[in-house]
């Protein structure tokens, strides 16, 4: 035991820089991994628990009109255990000059549903008394509408004296629609305001009424029921008349995905990044350990001549490095919950509620065990060299090397020296190259996503919209002067193209979907197959996998009590509703639906798309009876912001990793090249020129590695991201060459390596040549 103590003490004295560096890297890896895992797992379970606590069932259907009768009808379906009806009023609203894309749902707060009330930061506060004239909103509305306590929200219930203004009094956690990703928003109001609104809606003339009464039906599947979520929904639709009153419906699982979309993007990327960090950790630890073993080879040889077995010497190294890795992993684990808590607090304005985080103990321990095992195997393999050290051979050993031919001239001497040293000691630089490849692949992938997303979220706009457009105007009655509206639009920008879109509820083989109906089907984003006609429809990848359909199959589509058969002509992209939609032609839809009503939204492509917001604002302010929208939606800002935050966070972590990696690798290289450095110095090569030459080696290797990584991502990244995006209903992804995915990593990674190498080579300045030369003397 005493000899281990002595060995460890001596090793610590000599290698404390490397040991601290490895501890830091492993700690960051562990923090990143376990905190993102904690956030991911906690988010899912917390929102699910919250949804259950608030009384949301396996399926929630929003209906118009009184819901009690329907609730009773649904309760008679054999697989249904219970239905809870929660009355509400639907109304469009305006906040700080911005109009909602979807109607808000005004709910009277009477304490029957145990909502949690929050501060601005998401901290829970005691349940308040909701005063007349005040409203409680989801904190996510802050990121969507920039709304604060004290602002006014105007709810549009009737064209004639039907605008009700309520003042924001605080926030509440909405476990079902609270996320900034969901346009539908609940508002908690007082019983008096609710009654006043009911009065307005019920007395408004049919031509003036904007709001309407309705209900949320929370449907619970009976525990004995063996139906899948899809079949359960189908059974309710087929067994009741609920489809006639349905506004929209969501399964618990799909709303869970919506609620946690942003958080899952963040934690998913951090988890993936942790895998990259793990590889970097392994490389740097291996590199550092082999340098230490190499450096200590003579000591090892001497210990062996004294009779100490190789296994015991190796155990000393394993103890030290294994201990450091373990300490780093546990350190990260210790603080993961706290970091995840911080992340959850930062996400309140996106998720709409403060996720209560708790380290998933079993999963974390399993993961920890797997990491320990991987590190252990790696360390055992890496220290194998110690067993192979032959005592006297090593003591007598002289430095050798393989001859390399590169040009050496006066003009670019530092560069030439760098190239020569690289060629001569290429083994020492492999780690650097591999780290650069891994980091650049990951940063390129995330950068490509950023490029695809665009500065204003254009990528998502196109992915989520049925067809590209700048502006959409939907008239709700015959009094809307569309000619005049088009002239207004043309004040801002000439209209390049126009087409019409209707979004109607249909069922496909009994399953409810939204049908996107176009008068010109060429506007659909076709991924595979052909556009649809009067006898065919388009489906998304999501529908194809949900209903096990493929191109050429025939399906039964129904709406308004009429059913027709259609062939599937192709797969198209529209991530709206997580891809739960189909595409139809106007001719096709006319076989089952009424195309003469006010269902059509006129879509315009403008010559100058930048004018769309100005045109939209003008139309919203000056015309009633229309819905005006652009290709964007309120939750988009949240995603764009999150993506930018994510890119910054990942670049920061990468920069820290690069810093520590360079510290460890440059230490090893400087040690290995002490002799040559001293000789160059004695020949009159200044420290500055030596440092430049040293840093240039990093630049050359890392540029090559980054180039390789970017090339790899150019070939494979789009495919990888496409696969990931399919789970969100986005069927296509193509980023191409862009600043964030190509240029940024290509510049940032080599430059960081170069600068850090330059900084760490400052050691050369401090050590005198005499010391260097005598250190290198035998």
């Amino acid at each position, binding site marked *: 035991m005493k000899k281990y103590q002595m060995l460890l003490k001596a090793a610590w004295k000599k290698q404390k820089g490397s040991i601290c560096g490895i501890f830091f890297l492993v700690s960051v890896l562990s923090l990143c991994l376990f905190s993102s895992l904690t956030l991911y797992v906690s988010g899912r379970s917390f929102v699910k628990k919250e949804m259950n606590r608030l009384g949301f069932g396996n399926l929630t259907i929003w209906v118009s009109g009184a819901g009690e009768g329907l609730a009773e009808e649904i309760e008679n379906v054999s697989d249904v255990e219970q239905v809870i009806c929660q009355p509400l009023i639907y109304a469009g609203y305006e906040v700080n000059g911005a109009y909602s894309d979807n109607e808000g749902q005004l709910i009277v707060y009477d304490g029957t549903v145990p909502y949690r009330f929050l501060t601005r930061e998401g901290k829970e506060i005691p349940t308040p008394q909701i005063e007349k004239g005040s409203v409680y909103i989801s904190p996510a509305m802050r990121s969507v509408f920039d709304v604060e306590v004290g602002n006014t929200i105007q709810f549009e219930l009737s064209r004639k004296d039907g605008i009700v203004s309520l003042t924001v009094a605080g926030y509440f956690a909405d476990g079902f629609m609270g996320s900034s990703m969901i346009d539908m928003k609940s508002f908690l109001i007082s019983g008096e305001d609710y009654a006043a609104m009911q009065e307005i809606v019920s007395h408004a003339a049919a031509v003036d009424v904007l709001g309407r009464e309705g209900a949320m039906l929370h449907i619970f599947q009976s525990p004995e029921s063996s139906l899948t979520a899809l079949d359960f929904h189908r059974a309710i639709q087929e067994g009741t008349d609920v489809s006639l009153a349905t506004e929209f419906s969501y399964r618990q699982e799909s709303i869970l995905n919506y609620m946690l979309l942003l958080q899952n993007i963040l934690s998913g990327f951090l988890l993936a990044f942790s895998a990259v960090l793990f590889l970097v950790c392994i490389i740097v630890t291996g590199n550092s350990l082999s340098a230490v073993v190499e450096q200590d080879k003579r000591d090892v040889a001497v210990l062996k001549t004294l009779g100490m077995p190789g296994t015991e010497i190796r155990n000393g190294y394993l103890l030290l490095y294994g201990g450091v890795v373990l300490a780093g992993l546990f350190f990260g684990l210790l603080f993961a919950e706290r970091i995840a808590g911080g992340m959850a607090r930062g996400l309140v304005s996106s998720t709409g509620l403060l996720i209560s985080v708790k380290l998933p103990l079993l999963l974390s321990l399993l993961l920890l065990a797997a990491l320990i095992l991987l590190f252990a195997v790696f360390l055992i393999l890496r220290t194998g060299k110690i067993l192979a050290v032959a005592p006297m051979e090593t003591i007598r050993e002289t430095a*050798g090397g393989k*001859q390399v031919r590169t040009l050496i001239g*006066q003009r670019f001497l530092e560069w030439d020296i760098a190239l020569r040293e690289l060629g001569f*000691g290429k083994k020492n630089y492999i780690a650097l190259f591999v780290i650069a490849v891994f980091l650049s692949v990951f940063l390129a992938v995330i950068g490509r996503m950023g490029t695809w997303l665009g500065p204003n979220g254009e990528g998502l706009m196109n992915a989520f919209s049925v067809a590209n457009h700048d502006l959409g105007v939907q008239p709700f009655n015959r009094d809307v002067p569309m000619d005049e509206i088009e002239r207004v639009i043309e004040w801002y920008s000439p209209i390049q193209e126009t087409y019409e879109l209707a979004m109607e509820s249909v069922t496909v083989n009994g399953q409810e979907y939204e049908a996107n109906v176009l008068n010109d089907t060429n506007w659909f984003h076709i991924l595979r197959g052909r556009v649809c006609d009067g006898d065919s429809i388009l489906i998304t990848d999501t529908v194809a996998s949900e209903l096990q359909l493929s191109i050429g199959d025939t399906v039964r589509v129904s709406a308004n009590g009429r059913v027709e058969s259609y062939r599937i002509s192709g797969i198209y992209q529209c991530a709206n509703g997580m891809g739960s939609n189909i595409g139809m032609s106007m001719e096709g839809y006319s076989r089952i639906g009424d195309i003469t009503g006010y269902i059509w939204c006129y879509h315009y492509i403008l010559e100058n798309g930048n004018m769309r917001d100005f045109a939209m604002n003008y139309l919203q302010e000056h015309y009633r009876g229309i819905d005006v929208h652009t290709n964007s939606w309120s939750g988009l800002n949240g995603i764009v912001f999150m993506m930018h935050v994510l890119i910054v966070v990942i670049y920061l972590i990468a920069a820290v990793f690069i810093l520590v990696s360079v510290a460890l690798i440059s230490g090893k290289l400087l040690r290995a090249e002490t002799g040559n450095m001293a000789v*160059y110095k*004695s*020949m009159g090569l200044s420290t500055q020129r030596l440092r430049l030459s040293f840093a240039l080696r990093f630049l050359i290797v890392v540029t090559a590695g980054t180039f390789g990584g970017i090339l790899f991502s150019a070939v494979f990244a789009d495919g990888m991201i496409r696969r990931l995006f399919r789970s969100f209903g986005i069927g296509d992804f193509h980023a191409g060459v862009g600043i964030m995915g190509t240029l940024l990593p290509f510049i940032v990674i080599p430059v960081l390596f170069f600068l850090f190498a330059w900084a760490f080579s400052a050691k050369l300045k401090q050590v005198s040549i005499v010391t260097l030369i005598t250190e290198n003397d035998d």
Partner: protein
Amino acid sequence: MKEVIFQGTDLVKTFGETKVLQGVSLELYKGDFTVIMGSSGSGKSTLLYMLGGMDRLSGGQLLYYNRKIDMTHASEKQLTSLRAEEFGFVFQRTHLVSSLTLEENIRMAGLIAGSMSEREIAEKTETLIRQMHLEKAKDRLPAQVSGGEAQRAAVARAVITKPAMLFADEPTGALNKANTEEVLNLLTVLHTEGQTILLVTHDREAALRGNRILYLEDGAIVGELKLSPYQGKDIKREQELASWLEGFRW
């Protein structure tokens, strides 16, 4: 009257608590082959490195006349420039750059100095390779040649820039007898051609090549012997040196 190259007054060098040079005063002259002798730990190598601008003195004044520089207070840039353009070094271990061939090692010193064109450097390298009999070994790495070849290359590297002073720190310390003779002959030839040399050694045979011997003891010069220039084996010179060294219990 010989031209003074270095003038040192009360040169002091300390390493922590240890005073290695304790107020050395000396002058080194142009064209001399000065040898510094002394027992192990006497401070002779330290003195050489201080004079060569490889390390900084802790006290005293050291003037380098060619550049009119007080090396005690010279900037790192000035010292670097002196090492590149004015001085040449040969060490006990050859200290050639391990990744460069012998030819490249020689050429590199010329490239770093930057006072000659690449063509001149190439020609000079070629000449030195011939002079040092390195034609066969010139394209090999230091690890692939004999100690004698490596040390000859180190001498060639040291003189490619025609330095005002060639510093040699025990250049034959790690060589066998034949190689030692070769290297010493080279130094003698260089001296004959006008090269000023400062050699640190504890080898009597090597010291005989010099024309001025300084004896260092406990960080101070305690004796000086002037010899006639070396012209081959000379019993009289050998005896003169031997009896002088006996005075230091050598």
